[in-house]
């Protein structure tokens, strides 16, 4: 393919969306976490939960702000680089993404402000209600994104008039079978991401022997929550696999690195796929298991990539490895959370330093799983941008040259390197400092300036902490 505008535009989209998705994923989980904390505090009256809340809301505000800024960039990508896609499918994707923006603004203009500014101005019950609404709002935002992406994966409810793809049945589009599986899968992914971060933060403080009461809350709730949710997520992952097998068999074959039709099919656990020779190197495979996983039978036939014309085949290496990394992250979360709860019942959770280290180091597992899961879905959909309707190579803005996109991609990399590293460093500083002082909004702060809320990480208190780690 070389460095053509299509490939570079794909690379650019992959880059900006990767840096965007980590923030909304974290924010969705944090919204639910804060709501939970506020709910418990309201029920028990325990001020400890208030301290934990006051700490995490600063992270929430920063993460929300980063999500908004990186999201503004996303709002323009479809037009700048994917002009044909925007023109041909805009009648469907435009309103769906429009609703996403509207939802985000509605949130910002209403309960988000109460959550950040209104602690002392509204009743505790109303404050809790505002938290619920903010959390619902973040989930609702992802709802539109997942409708849109599910439509690109398995288009339904449309008709084609004069070469343009227009809506015929909004109900079918917004409630498609695929969307009903993928939205929960994404939501649970976001919850798990945050759950692991909360537990890891608790482990970090416990290892450093600081903020012990707050750390205990984070450890217990984080690990408990992940332990309960991970089996549900594995089940929804399985359902997602079923839709892929049913509607996108070529993607399924790519994920399994299955080159030939097989009956019964092998399950290739790990290998190095060789796309040129159309075979796997150093493969470790289990006979018959592939049929069992895909079709629930030890003898079922499974299609390989050879069944598809070369121009319709997705790349294999990225979906194959991305899927395995995602599943591996799920296994790590399962192991850490279940082991953690066993230790908890044995009363050794806060003394088993090896386990605390493992929990601390597992903080990025959720992020990695979210990213690799999306890589599996998006790269596996190739060569289509809208599956079966529009090829990626036909969707790019025709006036773009390689030089144009190389320039913009380099620009995005440089700007994001400064912006995202600064923001991430800032979040890290807040996390390291821990729950010391409650968030006090600075004068002039409004809900549309969430970054103005996490002000005190710049103070000198961070330097006086025990910074063994």
């Amino acid at each position: 393919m070389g460095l053509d505008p299509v490939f570079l535009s794909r690379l650019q989209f992959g880059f900006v969306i990767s840096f965007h998705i980590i923030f909304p994923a974290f924010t969705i989980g944090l919204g639910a976490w804060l709501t939970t904390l506020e709910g418990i505090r309201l029920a028990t009256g325990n001020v400890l939960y208030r301290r934990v809340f006051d700490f995490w809301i600063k992270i929430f505000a920063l993460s929300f702000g980063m999500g908004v800024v990186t999201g503004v960039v996303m709002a323009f990508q479809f037009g700048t680089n994917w002009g044909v896609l925007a023109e041909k499918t805009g009648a469907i994707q435009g309103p769906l993404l429009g609703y996403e923006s509207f939802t985000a603004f509605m949130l910002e203009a209403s309960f988000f402000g109460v959550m950040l500014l209104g602690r002392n101005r509204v009743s505790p019950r109303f404050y809790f209600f505002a938290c619920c609404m903010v959390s619902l709002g973040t989930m609702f935002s992802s709802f539109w994104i997942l409708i849109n992406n599910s439509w690109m994966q398995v288009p339904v409810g449309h008709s084609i008039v004069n070469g343009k793809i227009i809506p015929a049945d909004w109900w079918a589009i917004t409630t498609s079978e695929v969307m009903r599986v993928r939205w929960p899968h994404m939501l649970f992914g976001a919850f798990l991401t945050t759950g692991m971060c909360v537990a890891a933060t608790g482990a970090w403080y416990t290892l450093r022997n600081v903020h012990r009461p707050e750390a205990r809350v984070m450890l217990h709730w984080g690990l408990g929550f992940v332990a309960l949710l991970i089996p549900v997520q594995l089940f929804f992952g399985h359902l997602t696999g079923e839709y892929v097998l049913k509607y996108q068999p070529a993607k399924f074959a790519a994920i399994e690195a299955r080159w030939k039709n097989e009956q019964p099919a092998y399950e290739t656990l790990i290998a190095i796929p060789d796309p040129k020779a159309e075979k796997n190197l150093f493969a470790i495979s289990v006979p018959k298991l592939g049929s069992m996983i895909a079709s629930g039978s030890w003898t079922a036939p499974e299609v390989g990539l050879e069944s598809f014309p070369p121009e319709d085949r997705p790349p294999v290496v990225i979906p194959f490895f991305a899927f395995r990394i995602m599943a591996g992250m799920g296994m790590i979360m399962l192991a850490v959370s279940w082991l953690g709860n066993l230790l908890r019942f044995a009363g050794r959770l806060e003394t088993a330093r090896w386990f605390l280290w493992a929990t601390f180091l597992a903080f990025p597992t959720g992020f990695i799983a979210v990213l690799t899961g999306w890589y599996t879905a998006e790269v596996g959909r190739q060569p289509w941008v809208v599956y079966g309707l529009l090829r990626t190579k036909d969707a790019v803005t025709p006036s773009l040259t390689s030089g144009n996109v190389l320039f913009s991609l380099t620009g995005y990399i440089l700007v994001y390197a400064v912006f995202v590293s600064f923001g991430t460093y800032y979040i890290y500083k807040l996390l390291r400092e821990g729950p010391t002082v409650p968030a006090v909004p600075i004068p002039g702060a409004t809900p549309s300036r969430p970054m103005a809320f996490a002000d005190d990480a710049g103070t000198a208190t961070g330097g006086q902490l025990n910074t063994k780690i």
Partner: protein
Amino acid sequence: MQASNLALFWAGVIALSILIYVILDGFDLGIGVLFGFSGPGERRQRMLDTIAPFWDGNETWLVIIGASLFAAFPAVYSVFLGAFYLPVLLLLFGLIFRGIAFEFRGRTVHFQWLWDWGFSIGSIVVAFVQGAAVGAMMRGIPVQDGQFVGTVFDWIHPFPILTGIGLVLGYALLGAGWIVFKSEGELREWAYGRIPWLVVAVFVVLGLAFAVALTVDVGAIAEGAMPDRRWGLVFPVIGAAALLGVMAGVRARNDAVPFALTCVFFVASYLTLGVIFWPYMVPYSVTVASAAAPDASLGFIFWGGIIVLPMILVYTFGVYRVFKGKAQRGYR
């Protein structure tokens, strides 16, 4: 082809959102432009105090424009962003740098100069590319089969460059008017001192642009509909009168007049463009009717629009109301 009522509704929403955006983000971008020429120290902090509660909400309107355009007029969205690939990229970088500079300059001592430059240059870049895009639109955007058929450098011509500089100065004027409106003492006097120069500069650049359009960059405004709509000339006349009124307001030291009349100038300029462009959304190739998504799409997003847009309007008014009067010190 006639535009449907829904298409006209959305065209109206977008037109109104652009006007609100230009005026609201215009004054805080303008303060960014002035920021670089204000000398370091206390004055800078006080300039930021006047926009701290507002600037981020002002940018909300830009995303409303983008989202509504994609939803209601996908053909315009794709042609416009394709034609202005480079300006849009610079716009986004400028907005990001401005945003982080604003939030982070107060948190560092050693690197404050860096963020200050980021804030100022980011603002100038954003203002310039917006103005240049308007100039390039007046020259016309070549479109074939629903897609832009030029190069990413098409907008770089004498006329759009002048309109870009013109908007930087125009926003600076708006910003100076806002400072006068929202501040007191030394800073207000400083801003008063800048306004006459800016008014003269805006006149000079607009005159130059007009001259260039008649000579060097022939055709820059030739395709517009103004010759067929002579009545439309009333708007440039109102604009010029408003700028003269700004001068009078400065002389009378009336704090509200410079900003208010600069707004009138912007509205008049905007209406002038409307007279030149209508019914084209992308001059002179894509009309409102031809660009509109089918009514099935426009009707679907309509419900979102009539709930959210009033809400954002109310929110915007609310923020300006809460922070009304002269700016307090110490906002960051």
